[in-house]
């Protein structure tokens, strides 16, 4: 209980100093559930939360083919990697799997978490801001950029996400066919307790890259509004929402904290989770199938993305997004811009619009605040001690 309180208090401090605490299906932290991780595991043939992918058997078969290659490549043997696999196995209940299977699934989990962390520890405030508030990062989370307005913005955002996924799938195919056994073990950071993001572990490159794009697919079930048929009717907005400049008619529906959650409390939640699992499995199967041939044939992948990212035009805030059943759930908890105090401006600044360049400007602001706080903490007692000394001397005189 004390640990939970401590975690909440400190993550609260973090939330107070940076706006991007809520972004996409949750990933595992002390105050959020491993939604992305569980969706991915379910899609890759390890059912979680009682959700089994519709193409479970196909995934099992295809995975066994991939596993043979991984057995040939061999699992990296460093101490960090052993701990990495041990930690993943313990956290995600994979203890009775072979080392190769755990490495494969650990590569998947590291990959699907990466777009939310960019390799940084989840509690790094500045890096988190930079990761989530740039326009370039929005498509990886199935969100719209600040320039993507209105209905055209929906279509543009959907197409950009599809393009990104397809490009990543192509890269994973290339890695599968061109990288040797050792080259195919690429390094990424993994957040071990007390090490921050300073430790590198090695993952299976094609699997890790494939998992990067599953993040985007899964987020399309958290950051868009869909109709009964599953078609996207609107793409959500984060940057303008969190920076307090969003106009719904122009910028689209706001990012919803409600849709980030994966507690399967209602039929809506269960159906949405199931859809995310099936879409992930659909795409993963299509991509894994391309690995079986040296020439990259994206037909199946394009078809899969066509199903997942089907877009229906003509739905706006004025017509209630064509009566999307997702709207009432999304509106239960729209993300709010965080303000320092009532009446103050929002803390978050759009990183891509600062004249000095993105990160430097942010560091500059917080550097000055931090400097002022340090000066206050050191200066106040020094002043007090000096006054006390002078008064004592005067009194004695």
């Amino acid at each position, binding site marked *: 209980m004390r*640990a*939970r309180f*401590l*975690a909440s*208090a*400190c*993550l*609260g*401090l973090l*939330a*107070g100093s940076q706006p991007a*605490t*809520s972004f996409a299906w*949750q*990933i*595992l*932290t*002390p*105050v*959020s559930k491993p939604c992305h991780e569980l969706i991915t595991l379910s899609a890759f043939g390890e059912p979680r939360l009682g959700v089994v992918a519709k193409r479970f058997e196909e995934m099992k078969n295809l995975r066994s083919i991939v596993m043979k290659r991984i057995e040939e490549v061999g699992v990296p043997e460093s101490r*960090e990697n052993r701990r990495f696999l041990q930690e993943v196995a313990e*956290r995600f209940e994979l203890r009775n799997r072979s080392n190769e299977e755990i490495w494969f699934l650990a590569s998947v989990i590291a990959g699907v978490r990466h777009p939310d962390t960019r390799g940084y*520890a*989840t*509690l790094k*405030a*500045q890096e988190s801001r930079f990761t989530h508030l740039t326009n370039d990062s929005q498509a990886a989370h199935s969100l719209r950029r600040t320039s993507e307005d209105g209905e055209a913005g929906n279509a543009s955002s959907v197409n950009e996400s599809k393009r990104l996924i397809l490009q990543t799938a192509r890269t994973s195919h290339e890695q599968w066919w061109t990288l040797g056994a050792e080259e195919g073990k690429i390094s990424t950071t993994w*957040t*071990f*307790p*007390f*090490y*921050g993001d*300073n*430790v590198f572990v090695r993952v299976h490159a094609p699997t890790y890259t494939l998992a990067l794009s599953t993040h985007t697919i899964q987020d399309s079930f958290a950051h868009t509004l869909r109709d009964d048929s599953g078609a996207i009717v609107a793409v959500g907005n984060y940057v303008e929402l969190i920076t307090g400049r969003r106009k719904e008619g122009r910028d689209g529906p706001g990012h919803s*904290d409600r849709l980030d*959650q994966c507690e399967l409390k209602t039929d809506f939640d269960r159906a949405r989770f199931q859809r995310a699992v099936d879409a992930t499995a659909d795409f993963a199967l299509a991509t894994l199938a391309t690995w079986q041939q040296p020439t990259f044939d994206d037909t199946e992948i394009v078809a899969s993305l066509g199903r997942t990212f089907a877009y229906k035009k003509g739905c706006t805030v004025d017509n209630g997004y064509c009566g999307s059943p997702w709207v009432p759930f999304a509106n239960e908890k729209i*993300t*709010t811009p*965080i*303000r*320092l105090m*009532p009446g103050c401006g929002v803390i978050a600044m759009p990183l891509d619009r600062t004249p000095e360049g993105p990160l430097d400007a942010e560091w500059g602001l917080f550097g000055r605040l931090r400097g002022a*706080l*340090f000066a*206050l*903490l*050191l200066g*106040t*007692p020094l002043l*007090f*001690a*000096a006054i*006390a*000394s002078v*008064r*004592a*001397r005067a*009194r*004695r005189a």
Partner: protein
Amino acid sequence: MPELSRRRARVVFACPFFFASALAPDASLAQKFLSPETAQPSDPIVAERRALLREGPLDREGTKWLSSSFRGSFYDSELEMFLPRAGLALSGGYRPGTYGYFGTIQYDSFWDLGQNVTHLGSLSVGGGGEWLYFHGRARSAVAVGLSVLANRTVLLEAGHRGVFLDVIPLAVRLPVADGVILDLAPLNYSMQIYRVTYPEFNLSQFVSTLSMEWTL
């Protein structure tokens, strides 16, 4: 991660400022305490003792002392992330003049909040030097020594040894009773180094310390 409500976010954002101001000496109370006009005891002996307490120097030569401290922090400057920490220390020393030397034993707890809440303890033993100024109402100190991990990390075993460095640039000292001094150090630097080669393992934090010192 779930978005905190706006109200909750304001409250938690105010926390460090609250703690900072709480740790800093209360100027009005201190002024009242130090001002001869505000204390008018009827008993002359009490008055004399209070006057001594108020006005007497806190840096008398040949002083032996003991102190117990509580210190804490929220942020690790090495990892550049939130890493709450709390610790207790027992120290004792001797002051030949306005300087002194001391020994210290400390136990610190750290909590990593990255994915799950994980606890790490460390025990440190060492010694250092200190300097008093403003008639002993302010103090600076440096301490170094050995640290030992009380728990295992993913890459280091419990019992792994390292070194620590504590720097107290400024502590303000308030006499609260005969021979009892409250020592407030709002911003110290504390570093524990356990491994300098990859993967490095250092814990470096700016901490705030509250101590009670007894003159023997």
